[in-house]
Structure formats: structure tokens, C-alpha cells
């Protein structure tokens, strides 16, 4: 009986699936009003509180920040009208505009800025303010930040932290955000949608769209909504990009949302405080890491796995102002890769796998199970390594397992931030084994030196020159030219289907995270005239 029931259910499911495959309907709605419906995912679990991490990327919508980046990563003023850094880099003075008010009409003053940063510092969230000694009010519209040590990346915290009102901040702030941003929250149906409306007290240019609805849909449902003409902006995966959707156009945004393989840098043997093994004898050999970097065909990964919607990646920060273009290498060069391996004593055995001193060139490449792109990259990468005589076994694991295994196994990771501090976190000896940062225990004294200089620099251009030298200074560095502790493979393009009459303007290079970052200049979006 049970079997019959199961069989019957299986058949039912098939019928339902087939029925789901009917042709697309082309009833694109003709509305051209000042409302917009978006399905770009990204519902924040923690709510809309900037002091616990809301709005690091894209628009914080409800709040505004002291400074912003323009699309070329130049610093622009927002709430601030001026800022100055002392010669020793320790004292940052920020002057505020005097016409800014919160959506409830109260003026935004230095007290609110101080309150925001103090709350963020004590929140223990992803916002790292440990270098902030204290901050105090100079006058009603001037704030002074005192750092423990000079930190050039501190400016990024001013760019990304939305200011919250001291008078209206409480337990439930994350569900009732009041701020000085272009929009205010009307309604949040958890797991379904948020509805926002224009903030009448916004000090900046009035946004074109008076009302927006953000739907939180699964990939499939979002795509279906686009097809049915029920959403104006939809984030989609490369697999859907070839589909024509009536009334919508495909927007392809370049990103530093990268994927690459992190190689354990040390010999096996060590242990973390939690007892997780550190190191891997195969990938500790620089010849293996270099050969992989030279031998892999990044362009083919872009074409095959990402359907062409991406670019080859060479570092963690391609095309950002602190990126060193000399890190680009000629890849897909099997001959040179083989030479590197043979020169250092890795010789092929009768199974076609290389060996050196009895150690065979084999490792397990881990990826988070359920991430289809990382899975496909891992499987394809493993195939590419076969002609080199390196045996790669791709294996999917849960993030829980990965957190234990990532110190001793290569892992398919993804990063990509608008904050160069990420470079420091990934490659500095100081951050070895700190969470996901530098989990491969990379360490190089001269890289450390550059990284520290970059951090201590007092101007951005000075900092950037050191960030670049840390990647490759002509002799050493953390890029594939140097120690090659990673094999960066691809940068994902972020794809959106948007209404063909909607203009969203030029966008920044997108960071890690597909969805919310597109809202960056949302107050400037408008219908095509």
C-alpha cells in the first residue's frame, strides 16, 4: 500500500512539474507611476540597525552615512561637510551638515554620530571598531575620532555606517528604523517583503520613486515574478540569463565578488586552539600552488561555469583602486605549469599522478554544499588539474564542517569588499586563524611590512601604493606572482533583469553579495523619459 502511495505521489509530482513548464506569458504591466517592485533577495536577519551591520553595501535606505563613495570609489560628502586627519593619523575630525534631520523631524547632531559609533563598538557585531580609542563632541556639528593606531581604512567605516538617532534608538530599532536616509520603512512582513516610502524630511535630492516594495523570493520565484511582469528589478543567476523576458532587459554588473581556492600554506602538523588540524603537505609546496595558478584556464571557467557572465580573477580586489595590475598572469599554460612541477621534483608515476619523495600530488577540494556555482567551479577545476598530474577530489561540506576543515584542506572561498582592510585580514600574519580570515595561515614578513605601512598610511594614495606592493613588489607578494597562497579563479558578474524603461545609471564594481549592492544609487533611479 505504502509503495503504491509513494509511486502515486511521485507521478503526481512529475505531472505538477511538467505543468509548471508551460510557456511564458507576456503581460508586462503598463504601469509607469512612481512605484517600484524589486525582488533582489537579501532580507537582513538582524533587521535594519546599522550598528549591527545593516547597510554595509548598497543603500542603507533608512539611514545615511557621513561619507560615500561615488561609482569610481572617490570619497564624497554626505552627512559630513568636511573631514580632516591629523598628521600622525590618529585624530579624525568630521564636520556635519546642519540641515539634516531624521524622518521624525529631529535634527541630526554630533551626539547622534557619537551614539552610533559607541553603540556599534559595544555591539560586538561584524563592525570592527576595536581601533577606536574614543570619540567626542567638539561642538554641536563637529565630531572628533581618536584612534589607538593610525588606520587608513578607518574612512571606510565612515562610508558604510549609517547614523542612528540617539533619541529614538531602543530595543526594537532594528524593526522600526528611523534615520536620515531617502526612505522610511512602512511595513516589514518577515520572510516576505518590506515596503518603503519616501522620507519627506530627507535633506538630499528627492528620490524619483515615492514607494518601493522589496520582495524576498527564492531564485526561482523571483524569475517567475519577472516573467509574469510582477517585479521591476530582479536578481537572477547566470543559468537564467539566456531567457528572454518580455519588457525586461538584462543588466550585467562587474564585481569583485570573487571565487578562488585557498591553499593551506604550512606543512601539516599544527593545531588550532579548538583542535582543528592546520596545514597540508601538498599545498605547502609553492611549486604546486604556482603550477595550479599558471595551469588553470580561468577564461574557460568563466565561459563554462558562469555562462560568460564574469571575468577571470587574479587577486581578491581586481580593478579596485588598491589593486596592482601587475598581478595578472598568463594562465592556461600547461607547459609552463608542468615545467614548474618537474623542476621542483614532482614527477609523474604510472597512474599519471605526480609524486615527490613518496608524497603524491593529491588533495581534497572542499566547497560549501548547496552552492551550485562553487560546486561547478570545483568539479571543473578538478578536471583541469588532471593533465597536470594533480589529483583533486571535490567534496561538498556544510559550513560547520568547513570551519573545522578549512585550515588543513583547500577550500573554494569567495570574498570581495570595498574595504581594503579585507586584504589585511586575508594575508596578514596577525589574522592567521581568526575566523575565516587567513585560514590558510599565510605568512610573509615583507608582505606584513607593506600591509602595516598601508594601514598606518595617512593618505589614501599612500595607502594604496602599499596595498599594491603587498600584492607584488617585483620580488615577492601575496599574489600569484609571489607566494600564491590562493588561486583566484573568477569574478562573478551580478545579473539583474530590470524593466526596459528603468534607468539605474552607472554602478560601482559590485562587492561580494548579489542583490542589495545594486541599490547603491537607488535615490537616482528613474523611468526613461
Amino acid at each position, binding site marked *: 500500500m505504502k509503495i503504491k502511495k509513494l509511486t502515486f505521489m511521485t507521478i503526481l509530482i*512529475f505531472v505538477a512539474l511538467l505543468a509548471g*513548464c508551460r510557456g511564458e506569458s507576456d503581460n508586462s504591466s503598463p504601469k509607469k507611476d512612481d512605484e517600484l517592485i524589486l525582488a533582489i533577495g537579501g532580507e537582513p536577519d538582524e533587521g535594519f540597525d546599522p550598528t549591527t551591520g545593516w547597510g554595509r553595501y548598497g543603500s542603507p535606505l533608512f539611514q545615511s552615512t557621513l561619507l560615500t563613495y561615488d561609482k569610481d570609489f572617490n570619497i564624497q560628502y554626505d552627512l559630513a561637510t568636511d573631514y580632516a586627519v591629523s598628521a600622525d593619523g590618529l585624530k579624525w575630525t568630521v564636520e556635519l551638515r546642519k540641515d539634516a534631520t531624521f524622518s521624525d523631524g529631529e535634527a541630526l547632531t554630533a551626539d547622534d554620530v557619537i551614539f552610533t559609533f559607541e553603540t556599534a563598538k559595544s555591539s560586538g557585531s561584524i563592525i570592527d571598531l576595536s581601533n577606536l580609542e574614543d570619540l567626542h563632541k567638539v561642538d554641536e556639528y563637529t565630531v572628533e575620532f581618536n584612534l589607538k593606531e593610525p588606520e587608513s581604512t578607518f574612512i571606510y567605516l565612515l562610508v558604510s555606517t549609517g547614523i542612528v538617532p540617539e533619541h529614538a534608538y531602543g530595543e526594537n530599532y532594528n524593526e522600526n528604523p528611523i534615520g536620515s536616509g531617502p526612505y522610511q520603512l512602512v511595513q516589514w512582513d518577515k520572510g516576505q517583503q518590506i515596503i518603503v516610502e519616501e522620507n519627506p524630511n530627507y535633506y538630499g535630492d528627492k528620490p524619483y520613486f515615492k514607494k518601493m516594495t522589496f520582495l524576498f523570493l527564492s531564485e*526561482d520565484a523571483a524569475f517567475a515574478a519577472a516573467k509574469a511582469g510582477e517585479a521591476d528589478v530582479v536578481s537572477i543567476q547566470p543559468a537564467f540569463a539566456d531567457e528572454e523576458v518580455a519588457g525586461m532587459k538584462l543588466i550585467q554588473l562587474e564585481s569583485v565578488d570573487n571565487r578562488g581556492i585557498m591553499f593551506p600554506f604550512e606543512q601539516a602538523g599544527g593545531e588550532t586552539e579548538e583542535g582543528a588540524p592546520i596545514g597540508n603537505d601538498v599545498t605547502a609546496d609553492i611549486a604546486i600552488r604556482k603550477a595550479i595558478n599558471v595551469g588553470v584556464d580561468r577564461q574557460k571557467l568563466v565561459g563554462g561555469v558562469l555562462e560568460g557572465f564574469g571575468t577571470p580573477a587574479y587577486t581578491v580586489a581586481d580593478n579596485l583602486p588598491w589593486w596592482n595590475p601587475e598581478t595578472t598572469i598568463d594562465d592556461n599554460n600547461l607547459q609552463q605549469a608542468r615545467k614548474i612541477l618537474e623542476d621542483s621534483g614532482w614527477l609523474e608515476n604510472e597512474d599519471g599522478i605526480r609524486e615527490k619523495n613518496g608524497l603524491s600530488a593529491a588533495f581534497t577540494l572542499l566547497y560549501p554544499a548547496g552552492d551550485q556555482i562553487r560546486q561547478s567551479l570545483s568539479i571543473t577545476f578538478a578536471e583541469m588539474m588532471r593533465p597536470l598530474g594533480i589529483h583533486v577530489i571535490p567534496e561538498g561540506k556544510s559550513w560547520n564542517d568547513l570551519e573545522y576543515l578549512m585550515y588543513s584542506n583547500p577550500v573554494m572561498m569567495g570574498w570581495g569588499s570595498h574595504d581594503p582592510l579585507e586584504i589585511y585580514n586575508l594575508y596578514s600574519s596577525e589574522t592567521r586563524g581568526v575566523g575565516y580570515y587567513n585560514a590558510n595561515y599565510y605568512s610573509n614578513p615583507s608582505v606584513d611590512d607593506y600591509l602595516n605601512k598601508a594601514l598606518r598610511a595617512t593618505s589614501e594614495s599612500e595607502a594604496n601604493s602599499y596595498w599594491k606592493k603587498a600584492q607584488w613588489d617585483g620580488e615577492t607578494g601575496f599574489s600569484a606572482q609571489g607566494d600564491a597562497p590562493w588561486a583566484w579563479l573568477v569574478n562573478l558578474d551580478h545579473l539583474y533583469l530590470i524593466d526596459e524603461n528603468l534607468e539605474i545609471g552607472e554602478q560601482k564594481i559590485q562587492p561580494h553579495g548579489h542583490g542589495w549592492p545594486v541599490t547603491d544609487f537607488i535615490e537616482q533611479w528613474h523611468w526613461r523619459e
Partner: protein
Amino acid sequence: MLNLRQRTAVIIILAIVLLSVIMLNGIFMDNDRLTVNLDSKNNAPSLNHLFGTDWLGRDMLARTLKGLTMSMGVGLLAAFLSAWIALMLSLLASLNKTFDYMVTWLIDLILSVPHIVLLIMISFAFGGGFNGVVVGLALTHWPSLARLLRSEVLQIKSAEYVGVSQQLGKSKLWILRHHIIPHLAPQLFVGFILLFPHVILHEAAITFLGFGLSTDQPAIGVILSESMRYLSTGLWWLAFFPGLSLLLMVALFDLLGKNIHKLGGPFQGQRG
């Protein structure tokens, strides 16, 4: 014309042959057919690739066969363990009233919880993966068979010749070995085979839901859940053929079990 007994035998042989073909194909198949081939991805079914290819250009027929073999392996192991548990518990129940009460209680307990829920919990508790799935399946599929065997044992125990043996002073163990187990064997064997389809479908189900085998293993459940992502782009063959093959394999096992039952049971066999 063949008579009923011969027809049953032919069906059994056919089913066995088909199943072994699937299995041997899966085991001895050249692994090269599973490799990534980015030049021929997302191909619709053709003579070259009967089941089409997936988004990495892997041949779906090869993946399906591998998956079916995997499922059969899991099914074999789990069904065997389940049947073993069922046999042990039914024999335990025959010892005395208290044990009988305990076993019936355990059967009712397990049957009262929805199968899939219990399966997910056990599999999850054992850390998922191959081990988790096999343990989960083994621990959840024995009750109906155990119930059947228990009533069979009760019936045999009340038979006259068993009474005679008792009167002659034979030990309980002797009766167990010489009277009960030989009579249980056909029931057990048929029950074992009929557990198979059940176990296989459940394995595919929890793997599909993401609680079972890990995604790098070529299991049917993995194939099906992966292909869900591509359905809305029109790659119907990714789900259709593997699903259909799973259904066919399950139906074959069902057929096999029923026909063996027909052939083996002295009463049912003649009744047809």
C-alpha cells in the same frame, strides 16, 4: 502457453536480469563518461547522449546509472539491516509475554511517527552522509515486517507439532531453530525484497531534501534536487529521465518481490 508458475518464474528472471544490468553498468562503467565537458553542455537528449547532458556537459545517462547503482547499494544495505532487526525483534517477542509487549509497543511507537520525519532526525543525528542515511533507513523500515513476522511466529508456536516438540522436552532454542526460523525464511526473504523500493524512494527523498547523501555523490536524489534549479530554464531532461528511471527501478523491485511471493508461498502460488 506457459502456466502460471512458469510465467511467474519468467517475470522474476527478467526483473533480476534488468536490475543486474543496471547495477553492473553502474559499477563497471567508464568514469570518463562522467567527466566535465564544457563544449557539450545543456544538450537535449540525442543519440549521442540518450538522456541529454547537464550544465557541465556530463552525460545524464551515465550519471543516472551511477546514481541508481548508488541507490541500490544503499537500499541493499539498509533493507538487509532492517530485515535483520525485524527478525531479531520478532524472535525476541516469541520468548515471553513481557518481551512481546515491549516489541509491540516499539513497533507501534515507530509506526506512529511519520516515516520521513523520523528518517530526517536519525540521519541528521548521525551526521548525514552515507552512514547517516543507512542507519536512518535501517532504523525506520523494520516495523511493518516485524509485525508480520511476529504474528507468523505466534501462529507457528500454537501449531500442534510445536506442542509435541515441547512435550518431548525440546528446548526453546531447538524449537526456534527447527520449527520457527525455517517457516519464517520465505516471509523474511519476500519482506526483504519488498522493503527495497521503499528504502530506495526514501533515500532519494531525504537526499532531495538535503538531509541525505552529500552533493558530490552521484545519487538520484542529488541529481533531482540539482535539476530543480534548471527546470524553469527548460532543461526538462535533467529531472525527467533520472526520475523516470528511479520509478522504473522501484517498480521492478516491487514486481520481483510480489512474484517471488507468488512462487514461494505454497498457498498463494496456486491461488494466483
